[in-house]
């Protein structure tokens, strides 16, 4: 019977500064010479991280009430539309929102401007009510004038992601970057063996309430992310070979750093936001030790043709091959390029490791685990009555 540890034991060791914390890359290296049973004896927490563009992100903002007050029924921040269907001065700004006349500046840029302490122009309109008589307001706000400024991202940290290529004869502009014609490049997004959900593929430790690194501060996993899919094809190690599960995360933007939240604009696609996420995985038993030991040669992903409708699968490659700079698809050698920052992901994993070692951060037992056996519906189009 091999060693098992509880969250409490690990947290006590963290507090006493006696815990052994490694990054997922370090433990993958260690696993070349050690068994999972030996690793669970030796290592207490493994840090994982990612820094990539995550479109399903945004911020909840409460502007505070003006005098006389207004029920904001149409809201713009630096011209970017924000959601108005909440209470009088509550709003949600989505990372990808933008004014169609200024498509390169979007919600993510507004969030970044606020985060960097810049003034942002708030303009809002209302119909005027007995309790909210005002019909228009135009003023400057910044991170100090607003009340809550909460990052709430419905879908982040995809568990694996596809490699994008283009078999057509024309250039394709996608959220996976610019794809050159005739299979002249391939782009990939995940941080491989360092990626959070690839190190806990069956959600044995990550669930509702998991404390994480989010944008430079402490945040939480609050729900399965949208499009949470746990029954996608897996390899013999139980790791999905395509984009599968996701997480919804929340955290206080007022405590975050612009170093780990970055607005981005993709040619002929639109706006997105790079989000820095780090997740500590407590090594509770040998099974978890085995999961976090996984290395780039054992993680596979699917190569999809983004130039063709239906994105047909052309092959399957490992992260070791992707990071080597070339992959082989249909007998052709293709140059690879990442579209997410491994350098930044490593920095996050190291930063989280320091927080844990210094006793500033603890591992959290989820309040509730995520569902297994989930799949997705496609949008079925049905006839609509016109009356």
């Amino acid at each position, binding site marked *: 019977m091999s060693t098992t540890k509880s969250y409490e034991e690990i947290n006590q060791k963290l507090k006493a500064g006696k815990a052994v914390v490694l990054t997922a890359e370090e433990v993958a290296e260690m696993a070349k010479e050690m068994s999972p049973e030996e690793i669970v004896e030796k290592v207490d927490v493994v840090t994982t991280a990612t*820094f*990539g*563009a995550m479109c399903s992100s945004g911020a909840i903002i409460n502007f505070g009430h003006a005098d006389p007050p207004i029920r904001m029924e149409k809201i713009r921040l630096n011209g970017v539309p924000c959601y108005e269907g909440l209470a009088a001065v509550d709003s949600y700004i989505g990372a990808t929102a933008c004014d169609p006349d200024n498509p*390169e500046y979007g919600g993510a840029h507004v969030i970044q401007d606020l985060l960097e302490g810049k003034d942002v122009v708030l303009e809002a309109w209302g119909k005027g009510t007995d309790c909210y008589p005002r019909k228009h307001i135009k003023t400057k706000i910044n991170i100090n004038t607003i009340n809550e400024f909460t990052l709430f991202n419905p879908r982040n940290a995809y568990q694996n992601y596809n490699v994008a290529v283009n078999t057509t004869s024309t250039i394709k*502009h996608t959220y996976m*970057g*610019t*794809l*050159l014609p005739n299979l*002249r*490049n391939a*782009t990939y997004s995940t941080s491989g063996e360092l990626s959070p959900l690839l190190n806990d593929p069956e959600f044995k430790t990550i669930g509702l309430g998991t404390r994480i690194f989010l944008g430079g501060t402490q945040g939480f996993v609050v729900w399965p992310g949208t499009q949470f899919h746990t029954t996608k094809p897996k390899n013999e190690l139980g790791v999905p070979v395509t984009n599968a599960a996701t997480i919804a995360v929340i955290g206080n933007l007022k405590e975050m750093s612009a170093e780990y939240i*970055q607005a*981005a*604009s*993709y*040619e002929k696609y639109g706006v*997105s936001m*790079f989000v820095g996420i780090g997740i500590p995985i407590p090594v509770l038993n040998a099974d978890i030790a085995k999961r976090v030991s996984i290395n780039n040669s054992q993680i596979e992903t699917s190569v999809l043709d983004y130039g063709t409708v239906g994105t047909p699968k052309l092959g399957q490659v490992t992260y070791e091959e992707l*990071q*080597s*700079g070339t992959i082989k698809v249909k007998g052709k050698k293709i*140059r690879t*390029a*990442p*579209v*997410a*920052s*491994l*350098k*930044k992901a*490593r920095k996050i994993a190291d930063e989280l490791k320091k927080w844990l070692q210094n006793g500033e951060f603890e591992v959290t037992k989820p309040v509730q685990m995520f569902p297994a056996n989930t799949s997705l519906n496609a949008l079925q189009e049905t006839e609509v009555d016109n009356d």
Partner: protein
Amino acid sequence: MIKKRYILNFPPQSGDKAFTYHLVKDYDIRINILKAEVYPGKRGSLLLELQGKTENIEKGVKYIKSHKITCESLDKRIRWKQEKCIDCGNCTAVCFAGALTMNKSNWELEFDKSKCVVCELCIPACPLNLFEIDFR
């Protein structure tokens, strides 16, 4: 022998002279035209790779400049706001010339300007808009 890339900008009246011929013939410079935009009577821009003896290239550049043509080394015409770069790698996907590459040990972006062919694909490919190339 050195090899260096230059951007030449021709004013409207200089478009009809065979400067490249003189660079070869009079200064013994090996020329590789990497990019050219010529609009007769309006303007022209050339990206040239010059290979030859240092003194000959200096003389050749002087000769070109004496005809009211701007001639600047390529690296002075490329700007990359490195301090803002997040090393995502999007630009390396389109850089077929191999000027923009990821360092495989620390995963930082590396930019070897001497390999740039001014295809300008990196400009829209960068999601942070950090590249500027002044070719025209």
